């Protein structure tokens, strides 16, 4: 027999409701937490005596049960103790004081307030040791998240995402494009399908000890997402309804271009730059040089204010000047509407949330739309048997455009566009005409307006994530849990390149239907026991089964017949491509915790995995972890100490194994595809004959699992009656026996081989400083500071190998290098002496180095975030400043824009500069000025790539939110329970030395090669207005 107790928890100091309060049946592990309004509801067995309420910074409160089912509790501020509860591996809630490792959580409101459609972006600046990088400003772009540095040379470095206990897919699908990501860009990471409105809490498990029970898949950290649960409120007759509506306006950042000089150039032997209007002769083309071509590629023409009278006469006035970037990017609009209904009965509760997101991007016709319906139902099936089922369905629709090193990328026709030429008007009147190519030209830049009307890379995802958790209390001290989950989606990715696209004049298309399915099951038996008054013990054993299956089917067509018709029947050449993979892991694990007098905690885990991707016979791997937490302040009498309130020391050691990708253990053949890169190919079957060749990847049947070993020590300290807290962590993580695809000399017969090799060390510190400098009845000021730095060292790769290619071109590229670290920008620098001083020739010019070498590193020195929150009655103001310091960005756009004369730096044309270096000939400081003219920027400036390496440091006012909660007295006579309005600014202020202001773009999306900025949509900033209503 049991009954349900519910009520509301408020704080003694502010009188405000407290969310996230742990409500536990005293002496058991059964419990719940309060929701954002402080409400809770819990099923209580009849023999239970009392409930214990715990929340960080407050004294725990144990309330005896009486006949009433409604218990409202006021928690007193605790000057001495802490009992914060966090979600840990396998969804187990534990008191933070008992943890021997670092876990940091982010609450619902902080996620929603970021107003980011992509959940990964919502974590930026909020968790110490976590680096987020958004790949670009198109709606539906991917974001990368890495915890505590890159631990794997070439494999996945991003953490495992777990939602309500089951792993979910966060991959980026590009469909069966024939082209490298360099020439097309990347789409969204699939965590974008999660509805932020359904999230109660995100808990980030940073180290191997925290994630050890997730086995091989948790080796790079875990992002644990817990969704909201319904609560029963005995005072209500009707379900609680919450509605929120947000409208955002975003604008693209278009810094980095000169806006003064026209299309044109100084002809050979000429004395001054001559103007061209960029139109083909037959459309009214004009060149100041009567023998010259009215079209051209370069903005080396006259200054907009000093065009010659001849030009003014010919054009009938001064040439019109436009800013092509400002003209093209439009204000983005994002509408988000979310409706949630929740409630509960005696034995069950539920919540249903529907959210619609409609994002119109800064690029015309670019959109991301998402509809998601999420439901959770938790029921008490019997006295000792509960079931919780979550189902979410998401439909995501993304229409995006190719980016990257390609004339089909709209950024080409945009970033190199002169201020002379109105691409929009010309497109509307004449079609795909640019300032350097007529409508019929087979090659050259495409008009960006034409591209976004004629080409696209659409994707439609239908995704279902369903999970069920059954809990059976065999005895009060012994519980059996089974958690089964399914994450499955289809993604219809396609490419549409219309007839008339320069570079692909006959058009092409592909349509891929891909399907990803992940099935996961955990069966866990857990027990708790008080050995004596001082010592208690809890333990669990479990098994895990994980199956991931991926299939894709593609039809690809070349040479279309009917314009704008992207069906395979319309293609003169048709190809069909299939791609499948499947992998399984079976694991067993155990965990045990000893707790002594509530101040000393020892936790030990062990797991063994068997993976399908490793050779039979060596596919089993075992790894242990141990962690210790010691709340030493319990030994001190500090109850009345006004300065020092709480102190804990912790230490952990853990290993995590990792398996390989599928199908690396057996040598295979693949269909031949003679190709010269981007210019051409032969597709088989050819003339009715098929052809296969041996794979250039040398397989290995002797692979063994990778191993990550991590030691972490840390401390949690609280001061001034808990008004200030300091958490510090130091970790030292080593990844060994990496499974690499190592490039080797092709004269071996192979381009790459699969090998176990490499040792990587990541060491770092994380500091979390929290405080409440002011807290009065009506006003409070809270501060949260995150700081982290990570030091990477590649101790070895493979015998005789010093570096590994991560991404980029043959030159330039991003690589991991033994001597120079991870994310090294490798290309041709300037010649320097042995002290690194720039050498200059007798004419005052630096000289290209003799050999390629490191010219930068994209890895930041440190990351930090500061959040200040001010509350005055119903009004709150919160500001998040996020910074990344150190680390370079390779701005490959400048390679072209300096040549074409559209880069901001070329505005200095005609002026002299003196390079800071010494003359090679006599060792004296260089004093010879050099003229920065067209030849300087076109022929000299990018002879070395060093001028393209820019500082990637930034300080961003990432979020600033003003929220106003209407006073209760205004709405007490209405059906409304709460009404609030808010305004959020995103990236309103950015400080950086990067040409384009926001250095967060990456052509490689969420791939390992970061800091490669080239032909991507710039970052955005904007304001969101929101309304939240509960009734």
């Amino acid at each position: 027999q049991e009954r349900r107790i519910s009520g509301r928890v408020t704080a003694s100091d502010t009188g405000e409701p407290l969310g996230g309060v742990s409500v536990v049946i005293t002496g058991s592990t059964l419990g719940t937490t309060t929701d954002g309004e402080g409400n809770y509801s819990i099923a209580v067995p009849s023999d239970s005596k009392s409930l214990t309420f715990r929340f960080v910074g407050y004294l725990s409160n144990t309330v005896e049960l009486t006949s009433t089912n409604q218990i409202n509790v006021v928690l007193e501020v605790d000057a001495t103790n802490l009992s914060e509860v966090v979600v840990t591996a396998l969804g187990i809630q534990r008191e933070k004081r008992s943890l021997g490792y670092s876990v940091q959580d982010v609450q619902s409101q902080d996620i929603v307030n970021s107003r980011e459609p992509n959940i990964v972006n919502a974590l930026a600046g909020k968790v110490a040791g976590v680096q987020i990088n958004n790949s670009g400003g198109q709606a539906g772009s991917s974001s990368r998240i890495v915890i505590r540095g890159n631990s794997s040379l070439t494999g996945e470095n991003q953490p495992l995402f777990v939602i309500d206990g089951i792993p979910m897919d966060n991959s980026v699908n590009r469909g069966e494009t024939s082209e490298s990501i360099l020439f097309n860009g990347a789409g969204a990471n699939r965590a974008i399908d999660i509805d932020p409105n359904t999230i109660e809490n995100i808990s980030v498990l940073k180290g191997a000890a925290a994630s050890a029970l997730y086995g091989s898949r948790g080796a790079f950290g875990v992002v644990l997402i817990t969704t909201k649960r319904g609560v029963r409120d005995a005072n209500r007759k009707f379900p609680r309804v919450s509605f929120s509506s947000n409208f955002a306006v975003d604008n693209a950042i278009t810094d980095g271009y000169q806006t003064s000089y026209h299309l044109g150039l100084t002809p050979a032997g000429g004395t001054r730059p001559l103007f061209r209007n960029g139109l083909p002769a037959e459309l009214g083309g004009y060149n100041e040089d009567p023998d010259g071509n009215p079209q051209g590629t370069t903005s080396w023409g006259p200054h907009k204010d000093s065009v010659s009278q001849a030009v003014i006469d010919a054009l009938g006035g001064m040439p019109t000047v436009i800013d092509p970037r400002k003209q093209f990017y439009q204000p983005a609009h994002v509408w988000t509407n979310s409706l949630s209904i929740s409630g509960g009965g005696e034995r069950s509760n539920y919540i249903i949330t529907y959210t619609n997101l409609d994002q119109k991007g800064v690029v015309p016709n670019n959109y991301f739309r998402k509809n998601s319906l999420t439901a959770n139902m938790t029921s008490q099936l019997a006295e000792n048997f509960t079931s919780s089922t979550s189902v979410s369905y998401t439909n995501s629709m993304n229409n995006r455009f190719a980016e990257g090193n390609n004339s089909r990328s709209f950024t080409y026709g945009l970033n190199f566009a002169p201020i002379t030429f109105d691409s929009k008007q010309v497109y509307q009147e004449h079609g795909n005409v640019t300032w350097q190519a007529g409508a019929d030209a087979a090659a050259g830049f495409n008009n960006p307006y034409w591209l976004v009307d004629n080409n696209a890379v659409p994707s439609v995802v239908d995704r279902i994530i369903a999970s069920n958790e059954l809990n059976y209390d065999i005895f009060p001290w012994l519980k059996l849990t089974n958690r089964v989950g399914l994450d499955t989606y289809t993604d219809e990715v396609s490419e549409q390149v219309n007839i008339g696209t320069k570079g692909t004049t006959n058009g092409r298309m592909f349509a891929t239907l891909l399907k990803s399915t992940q099935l996961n099951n955990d069966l866990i038996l857990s027990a708790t026991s008080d050995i004596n008054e001082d010592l208690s013990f809890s333990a669990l054993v479990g098994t895990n089964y994980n199956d991931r299956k991926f299939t894709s089917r593609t039809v690809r067509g070349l040479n279309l017949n009917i314009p704008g018709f992207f069906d395979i029947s319309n293609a003169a050449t048709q190809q069909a491509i299939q791609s499948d993979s499947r992998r399984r892991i079976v694991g067993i694990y155990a965990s045990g915790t000893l707790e002594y007098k509530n101040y000393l905690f020892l936790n030990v885990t062990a797991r063994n995995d068997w993976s399908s991707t490793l050779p039979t016979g060596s596919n089993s791997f075992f790894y242990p972890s141990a962690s210790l937490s010691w709340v030493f302040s319990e030994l001190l009498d500090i109850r009345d100490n006004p300065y020092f309130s709480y102190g804990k020391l912790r230490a952990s050691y853990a290993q995590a194994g990792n398996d390989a990708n599928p199908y690396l253990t057996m040598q295979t053949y693949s269909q031949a595809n003679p190709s010269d890169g981007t210019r051409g190919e032969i597709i088989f079957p050819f003339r009715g004959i098929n052809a296969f060749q041996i794979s250039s990847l040398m397989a290995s049947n002797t692979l063994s699992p990778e191993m990550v070993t991590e030691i972490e020590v840390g401390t949690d300290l609280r001061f001034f009656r808990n008004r200030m807290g300091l958490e510090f962590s130091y970790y030292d993580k080593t990844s060994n026996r990496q499974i690499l695809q190592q490039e080797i000399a092709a004269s071996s017969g192979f381009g790459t081989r699969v090998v176990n090799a490499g040792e990587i060390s990541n060491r770092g510190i994380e500091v979390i400083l929290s405080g409440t400098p002011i807290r009065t009845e009506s006003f409070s000021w809270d501060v949260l500071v995150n700081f982290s730095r990570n030091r990477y060292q590649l101790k070895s790769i493979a015998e005789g190998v010093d570096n590994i290619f991560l991404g980029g071109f043959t030159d330039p590229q991003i690589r991991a290098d033994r001597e120079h670290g991870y994310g090294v920008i490798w290309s041709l620098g300037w010649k320097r002496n042995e002290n690194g001083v720039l050498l200059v020739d007798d004419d005052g010019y630096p000289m290209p180095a003799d050999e390629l070498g490191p010219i930068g590193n994209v890895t930041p020195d440190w990351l930090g975030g500061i959040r200040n929150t001010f509350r005055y009655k119903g009004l709150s103001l919160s500001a998040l400043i996020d910074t990344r310091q150190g680390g370079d960005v390779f701005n490959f756009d400048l390679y072209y824009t300096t040549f074409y004369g559209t880069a901001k730096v070329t505005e200095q044309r005609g002026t002299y500069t003196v390079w800071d270096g010494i003359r090679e000939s006599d060792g004296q400081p260089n004093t010879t000025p050099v003229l920065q003219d067209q030849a300087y920027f076109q022929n000299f400036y990018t002879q070395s790539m060093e001028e393209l390496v820019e500082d990637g440091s930034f300080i961003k006012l990432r979020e600033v939110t003003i929220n106003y909660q209407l006073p209760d007295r205004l709405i007490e006579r209405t059906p409304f329970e709460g009404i609030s309005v808010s305004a959020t600014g995103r990236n309103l202020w950015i400080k950086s030395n990067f040409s384009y202001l926001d250095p967060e773009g990456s052509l490689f999306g969420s791939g390992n090669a970061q800091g490669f900025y080239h032909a991507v949509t710039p970052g955005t900033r904007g304001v969101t207005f929101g309304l939240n209503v509960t009734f």
Partner: protein
Amino acid sequence: NDKLDINVDPNAPSDVPEDLLLPAVLSNFSFEVIGGWAVRNSSLWTKHLARAVPGPHEGHYRLTANDANNFWRFYSYIDVMQNCKVLIEKATENENYNYSAISKIIFAWNMSMITDLYGDAPLSNAFQGTDGVIKPSYDTQEEIYRQIQQLLDESIEEISREIGEIPGSDDFVYGGNMDNWQRLARTLKARFYLRLSNAPGYDAATQAELALQALNDGAITAASVPSYGYVDEAGAENPWYQFAIDGKWDNRDRPSLFYVNMLLDTEDPRIAYQISQVTSGDNEGEYVGVTNNPTPSPIANYSQIHSFYSAADAPLYWMVYAEVPFMRAEAEFLRAGEMVNQSVIDAYEEGIVASMEFYGINSTDYSGYLADNALSSAAGTAYEQIMTQKYIANYLQLEAYNDFRRTGYPELPVNAELYPGATNLDTAPELDIIPLRLPYPSSERQYNPENIPANIPAGYQQAMVIPVWWDND
């Protein structure tokens, strides 16, 4: 454990038969090697073509270790020669000697291109990655040519055995005509004997004698020129079409001003099959070449490579028959101690006629040209005439670059031409000679640096002025 035994790639076979490997070898060799980057680049240096693109680029002799990488790494060692090696092993084991013979010919041919362009290269220690050799040692060019001749001898012998499967439609070049393959092997032998005419320790007359012997054993005829037929469908077109005409990236690699003017000045009737007339604009109906700098007027006002070579469905000629009589002419000339005799004259004239007839030009249309270009009796002039005629016949063939380096003929100026009327060169060449080799590729510099010959510097400008071993003037 059965549940874990699923690691077999469903999309990639673990074994394939000879008749699926052969088309891959032939198609990769044709598209990526014979019709690929190497000849696109060497044609800029032999001035058959020029690249009317702002520089500095390959037309200005700027060619870095990275630029030299793909041809070595992906096209030659991986896509062609490794698959030749796999096919040779499989066919030998199955006693399908026709397949191993063809594979050895392609292997030898590709290896000759590697050594001609780069010099010493891995061969006897190469293709042993599965045995753990990931940093193969280099063989000298002399040793490589010894092995190439041996491979060709083996292929001739294997065909003679007449054992095993005979290829059919999977042989895109000869459709299984093994006699033609044998002829091709002998023709290549002759080519490679002559290659060493100036090599240190080798005697020109002896090499000429060996070359003549190989040709006399049965060389290719006008009817058995090796070629690969392409199709006018997307993803099946001729590589010159895909590179220079359809504009996937650019279409500004065009016949050079120097070469077009040379044909115009000599009223060479072959111009109508090598160079296309401008179809519109100011120069309509004319033959106008480009330089290695951007054109002063729109690119459409300049000639393209003629559709004889660059139509989407044009066959790619792996060599031309005229090379046989021109080899004969040179060999007779060298055998006679660099003297002109009737055998030299006959072979020389046969070469010109073969080249004319290759395009279907009638004798009435070339007899005047033939008379104007009668072989001089002066040895020096005669040698230049032979090699110049061979150079014209070898339009868009890598062999023109090899012959130029070996004999110095025809005399070619460095790429510093100005467009008519222009006074300044936008970008000047980075070397004052035509490059003599390629720098070693970046992948070898990165993954096998210990074995690269120490006398070849990493810097491309320093490397490209060092002649290869056989180029011994």
